[in-house]
């Protein structure tokens, strides 16, 4: 590791707040991008199957 300790990695010499918040926001958006189509796909397949059962 480049940092001497885990605490140094978190603090990043005062830049920790910027770096970690950038990654937190970025990865939260990416997680939403993955979850949204998965949930939509599941809901659509459920609807189509229900429709089939009614026919």
């Amino acid at each position, binding site marked *: *590791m*480049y*940092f001497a300790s885990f605490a140094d*990695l978190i603090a*990043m*010499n*005062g*830049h*920790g707040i*910027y*770096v970690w*918040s*950038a*990654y937190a*926001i*970025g990865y939260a*958006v*990416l997680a*939403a*991008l*993955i979850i*949204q*189509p*998965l949930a*939509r*796909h599941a809901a*659509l*397949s459920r*609807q*189509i*199957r229900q*429709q*089939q059962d009614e026919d």
Partner: protein
Amino acid sequence: MFRQWFHRWGSPPWFYRMSGTLLPWLSVVAAGLIATGTVWGLAFAPEDARQGNSFRIIYLHVPASFLALAGYYLMALAGCIGLVWRMKLAFWAVRAAAPIGAALTFIALVTGSIWGKPTWGTWWEWDARITSMLILFFLYLGVMALASAYQNSDSGNRAASILAIVGMVNIPIIYKSVDWWNTLHQGASLKLTSAPTIHGSMLYPLLIMIAGFYLLYAVLLLLNLRCEILSNERHSRWLQDFLGDKR
């Protein structure tokens, strides 16, 4: 040969099955690359001599920006194919690509803004690169809005594709903005035409992240396209048979 390939990929049943097989593999490799690149970039790469540790935001900012732009090419190309050959799947690709592009542009803008604070002392500046990226964000939102603005989805498809194509004028402006207007944003660290301006120990995790983001983009596009296929083909025989077999 090309014709056959084109027809296959343009066929929703074939595309749906193929993408279902590809997705697990793509996802695993994308996740592995992104995890490696993130840990390497955050914990193992050396800090920048001038910017200190804030430069580590590059490992998220640059890949997101690359894919925000590459995604726009793809969306405009899909719009072209849809308009010229009236291919349904191409129009659905426009609809699938727009929200992904908007989200990636958003990540690029937010991480850039956070990076700007410790580096330039400001969250926001009407610098040419930042402003043209903001326009890219609005173009993506405009394509999303047009795609869903019409009762008739054919009109929505056409309108969204036309806006996607017209918006291409913004792309060279984004690329050239750091050269034409030498304001705040730094020049490119990576160029196809010359050696990179950053050292290998900083460069490798960046290249790994970019590769990971390309694959992640493919995963997201396939996921969204599969939703478009389900929602548009819900009454077709092949899909009902396919879903029937799967339970």
